[in-house]
C-alpha cells in the first residue's frame, strides 16, 4: 500500500492531468461534444425515418449510447497519448522519472484522468442525445441501469486510457498517434456496433465481431442505457475487465520501461 507521501504524489499527478485537459476544454471537451452532435443530427435525425427500429428502439435512441461510448473512448485514449507526447516535447516528462513516485501510481493517475475526461464527454453527449430525443419524440429517454452506465464507461475509458499511455510512450510524433487512432482504434470503434446492431451482420461477420473488444464495451453501455443489447451484460463486463487487465499491464510496462527523454 502506498504511504501518505506517495498518495500526495499520486494526487498531484492526477490533478495536473485533469487540469491539463480542462485548461484546453474547447478542444478536449466541447469539440467532441460538437462532433457527437453532428452525428446525432446527421444520422439520428435524418436516418431515423428510414432505418427501422433496432432492438425495439428508434434509431436515434439506439445511436445515443454508441455515440456516448465512442466519444468517451476516443477522448480517453487521446488524453493520455497526447499528454505524454506533449510532455516529451516540452521535456517535462522527465520530472516523473526523477521524483520518488512509483510506476504503479503514475500509471494509475494517468488512467484516472482519462476516465474523468471520458465520463465528462460521455455525460455531455448523453445530455445532447436526451435533448434531441425530447425535441423529436416528445419524451426523455429513460436510463435503464445508471450504475451500469458508469461501470461500463469507466471500464471502457480505463482500457482506452491504458492504450493511450502505451501509444504515447512508443510514438515519436503526433502523426504516430493519429495513425494508431485512424487505422486501428477508429475502425474497431466503428465496427463495434456504434451505428448498427450486430444482428444485421452476416453470421460470418458476427463471428468476426466477437473478437472486437469494443463490441463488449459498446454493448455494455447500450445495455445500461436502453436495457437491451446484442451481447449479454455479464459477458460484456467480463470481457471488459479482462481487457482492463491486459491493457493495464501494457500501460504499466510502458511507464516502467518507456523512454522519458525529450526529443
Amino acid at each position: 500500500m502506498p504511504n501518505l507521501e506517495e498518495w500526495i504524489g499520486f494526487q498531484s499527478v492526477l490533478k495536473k492531468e485533469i487540469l491539463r485537459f480542462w485548461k484546453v476544454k474547447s478542444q478536449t471537451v466541447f469539440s467532441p461534444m460538437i462532433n457527437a452532435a453532428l452525428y446525432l443530427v446527421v444520422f439520428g435525425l435524418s436516418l431515423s425515418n428510414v432505418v427501422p427500429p433496432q432492438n425495439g428502439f428508434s434509431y436515434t435512441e439506439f445511436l445515443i449510447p454508441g455515440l456516448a461510448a465512442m466519444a468517451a473512448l476516443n477522448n480517453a485514449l487521446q488524453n493520455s497519448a497526447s499528454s505524454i507526447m506533449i510532455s516529451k516535447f516540452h521535456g517535462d516528462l522527465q520530472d516523473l522519472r526523477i521524483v520518488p513516485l512509483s510506476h504503479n501510481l503514475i500509471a494509475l493517475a494517468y488512467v484516472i484522468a482519462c476516465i474523468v475526461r471520458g465520463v465528462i464527454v460521455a455525460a455531455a453527449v448523453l445530455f445532447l442525445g436526451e435533448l434531441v430525443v425530447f425535441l423529436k419524440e416528445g419524451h426523455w429517454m429513460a436510463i435503464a441501469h445508471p450504475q451500469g452506465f458508469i461501470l461500463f464507461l469507466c471500464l471502457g475509458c480505463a482500457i482506452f486510457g491504458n492504450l493511450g499511455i502505451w501509444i504515447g510512450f512508443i510514438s515519436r510524433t503526433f502523426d504516430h498517434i493519429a495513425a494508431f487512432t485512424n487505422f486501428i482504434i477508429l475502425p474497431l470503434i466503428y465496427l463495434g456496433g456504434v451505428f448498427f446492431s450486430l444482428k444485421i451482420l452476416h453470421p460470418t461477420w458476427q463471428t468476426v465481431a466477437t473478437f472486437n473488444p469494443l463490441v463488449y464495451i459498446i454493448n455494455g453501455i447500450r445495455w445500461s442505457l436502453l436495457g437491451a443489447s446484442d451481447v449479454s451484460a455479464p459477458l460484456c463486463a467480463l470481457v471488459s475487465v479482462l481487457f482492463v487487465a491486459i491493457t493495464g499491464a501494457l500501460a504499466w510496462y510502458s511507464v516502467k520501461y518507456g523512454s522519458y527523454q525529450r526529443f
Partner: protein
Amino acid sequence: MTPALHIQDLRIEYRLKDDVKVAVERLSLTIEHGELFALLGPNGAGKTSMISAMVSLIPFQGGEIKIFDHPAGTVAAKKCIGLVPQELVSYGFFTVNEILQFVSGYYGILNNQKRIDYLLERLQLQSQKNKLVSQLSGGMKRRMLIAKALVHSPKILLLDEPSAGVDVELRTILWDFVKELNASGMTIILTTHYLEEAQRLCKRTAIMDHGKLLAMDYTDKIIADEKNLEEAFLKLVKKRGPNA
C-alpha cells in the same frame, strides 16, 4: 561520515542504431557531504550523462552510484536530489506556481506555498509567479528550474550549467544564493563552462573528458603553477584532442 555521492567504476553507453557510444568510462569519484564541487569538461565530455544517470534519467551499464549510501534510483536516493537540467523545460499549460506546487506534491509535500514563495523571491521570480512557463524568457525559465529543484529542500543539488543564459546581475544573485545554500549544509555539484565561476566558488574540482576523469583535486592544486583554472583546464584537455 557517509559521502553525499559515491561513484565507482561508472560506465554509461548510448546504444545507437549500429554503434555503441561510450559516454562515461571507469569513472570513480566521491563527494563529501557539504561540498561545493565543480564538474568540468569540454562539450561532450560526459557531464550531463553522469548527472542523468545519478537521477535515473538514463540507465548505466556498469559500476555503481550511491547517494548518501542509497543506490541511485531508489526512493531514498531520489528524495535526496534536486536537479537543474541543462536543457530548458517548457511546461505548456501551466503557470510557474502551478508547476512548483505539482512538483512539491510529487515529493509528497502538501501546502508548500511558503517555501515556493521564498524560492521565487530569492530567484527574483515573484512577478512571474502566475505567468505561463512557456511565456518566460530563457533566463527566467532557468531560474524557475532552479526553484523547482529546491522545492523539496534536497540534500544534494545538481546544477547542470545553471548560469547559461542568465544575465550578469542575476548571475551574481544566483551565486550568492548557491553559496548560502551550501553554507546551510547542502551539497552542490556544479557544471559550468564559465571556469572563473568554478574557480571562485568551488573548493574541489574534477575535470573530465572523453568520459574519463583527467584530474580531481582541490581547485588551487589543479591550478598549481598556472595562471588560473582556465589555463590549467586547457592544458589538461589539449593533451587529449577533440571529442568524438
